[in-house]
């Protein structure tokens, strides 16, 4: 296992009390594996991966649990040690390529900066490597692109530059936080191809955060569905798509328009809205919106269990 997260809890002290953004998330990631993390906004998918990266800088955040990277505990690791991993062995791609790059430096400079932060090589060597990387992420003219500023590139090209930056030190683990959300569909497809290709050439493990079930069905080996800071279902891609067990997963899949057959006049939507993290119900967080809830759901939170394909739902356990 390259990454092993156990019982991760992230809370934020606020004026209205303690907000538990992540409540007991556990997952494992093997080398070269792509894990899709699905959930709606506020389900905690981004926060949990920011915690893995050590990028939660809010002084009011409390991080508990265990995050082991290649057997090494990351929670409580000194900032200097963490910095040595970050960008070098664990890299991250962010959602909005428009704002993810510093506007006043060229693409080449910014990628070389990362390489030189981790490797003791000369500037010209670093720039050679940048050119290679840009070619690898399909820049039509890598040499010219190096001297471009972010505002001179389109959104898709900027995201490619960000990906090239993330790959610059051959990371063993790549965290992609909705890298295609801000891009249009044709560009999206190109970026997904790129992620797939990189997994095969660099053998990096990838955590792919998204709210797009379609992207997950194309890319992920395994899928983890999150709701209100907890994992509600996990399993391999085929298990999850052919046999969804948690009512929330089913509802998510049900809201995708079918490609063949008769189209419904209205797409089914999940009634209600996600609960406020300040006032989570005592029992299952999805309970109030769930079509199949019954007595046990109100009083206690269902456990996920340890099976490879598992759902945190009393109905599933009962069946």
């Amino acid at each position, binding site marked *: 296992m390259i990454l092993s997260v156990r019982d991760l809890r992230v809370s934020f002290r606020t004026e209205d009390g303690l907000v538990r953004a992540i409540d007991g998330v556990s997952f494992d990631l093997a080398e070269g594996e792509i894990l899709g993390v699905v959930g709606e906004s506020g389900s905690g998918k981004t926060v949990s991966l920011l915690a893995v*990266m050590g*990028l939660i*800088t809010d002084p009011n955040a409390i991080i508990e649990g265990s995050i082991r990277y290649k057997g090494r505990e990351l929670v409580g690791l000194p*900032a200097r040690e963490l*910095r*040595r*991993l*970050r*960008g*070098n062995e664990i*890299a*991250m791609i*962010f959602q*909005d390529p428009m*704002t*993810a*790059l*510093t*506007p*006043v430096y*060229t693409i080449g400079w910014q990628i070389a*900066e*990362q390489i030189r*932060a*981790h490797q003791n090589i000369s500037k010209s060597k670093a720039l050679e490597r940048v050119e290679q990387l840009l070619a690898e992420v399909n820049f039509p003219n890598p040499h010219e692109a190096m001297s471009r*500023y972010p*505002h*001179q590139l389109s959104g898709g090209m900027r995201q490619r530059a*960000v990906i090239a*930056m993330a790959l610059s030190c051959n990371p063993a683990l790549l965290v992609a936080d909705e890298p295609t959300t801000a891009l249009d569909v044709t560009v999206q497809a190109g970026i997904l191809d790129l992620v797939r290709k990189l997994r095969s050439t660099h053998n990096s493990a990838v955590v792919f955060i998204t709210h797009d079930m379609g992207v997950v069905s194309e890319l992920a080996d395994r899928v983890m569905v999150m709701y209100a800071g907890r994992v509600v279902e996990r399993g391999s891609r085929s298990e999850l798509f052919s046999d969804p067990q948690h009512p929330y997963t089913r509802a998510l899949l049900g809201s995708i328009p079918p490609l063949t057959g008769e189209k419904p006049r209205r797409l089914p939507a999940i009634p209600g809205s996600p609960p406020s993290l300040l006032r989570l119900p005592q029992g299952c967080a999805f309970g109030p919106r769930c079509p199949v809830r019954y007595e046990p759901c109100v009083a206690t939170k269902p456990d996920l269990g340890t099976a490879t394909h598992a759902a945190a739902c009393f109905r599933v356990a009962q069946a």
Partner: protein
Amino acid sequence: MIYAILRRFGQMLFVMFGISVIVFLIFFATPGSDPAARIAGRNASPEVLAAVRHSFGFDQPLYVQYVRMMEKIFVTGDLTSFVNRGWKVVPAVMDSIPVTLSLVFGAAVLWVVVSIIIGIVAAATRDSWLDRLLMALGLLGISMPVYWLGEVMNLITQSRYHDSWLFSWVPPLGYKNFSDDPKGWFLTLVIPWITLAVLYIGIYGRVLRAAIIESLQEDYIRTARAKGLSETRILLRHALRTSLIAFVTLFGLDFGALVGGSALLTEVVFGLHGIGKLTYDALQNLDLPMIMATVMYASMFVVVANAVVDFVYILLDPRLRTS
């Protein structure tokens, strides 16, 4: 980029032409006033008035008067002050320029360096006691009027403690030419520099701190952290670099205004005969040719300072280079 600079230069010339026309019209074409009488001064004899009329072309159309005036200021340089009995205006302005420039330039170096250090330290240690102390000192600096601070400085360094080892090096008030006596030039200006810079150190330190803290919230700072860069590097190369734009804007405006005569109070307090003092005296005597020349000079410096700021923008922010 060269095209952008050339275009900016052209705009600058155009703006200066516009200013010269407006200033000219205000002084020479205001209805109901006779510019010749004003130029000649109070109780001027009819002969002097006639000479003024002829020399400034008041018997000819307005555009001829404008050209005459500009010729007197920029080409022949023989604009004469009648109030001050034949004093040549242009050499007087030329003599005060180095005084004001020395004062403002030295103060600017001081306030830029110190306020950048204060802004960085305060932003890096934000919400700590050090940050609060620096910001409180900044507020104190902003609150002290320059004429009061200058007088207190004089009181301390020129009289009360002048004989102590601490301030015995301070020379008497006045200005010494750099070419004649570089050491004297420096020593006479140290106290005025500090006095003038205190206000701006306060303002700029606070502005820079706010700008750095704001840019630390940006997405690209998170990217920089994800790259594994050190906090120092993130602060200096990413956050500070993008914060300097607001800083430069402010600097251009203040520097231009100060060189254009806003350093008057400091000049008066320390007995420096700079542009501010010259303008002030001209206003007291209603010395129209002198006012005309100093206003032209001041606006020229404001315009040039703004053009320089725009050039620095182009260097700082690549997004401005292409448009």
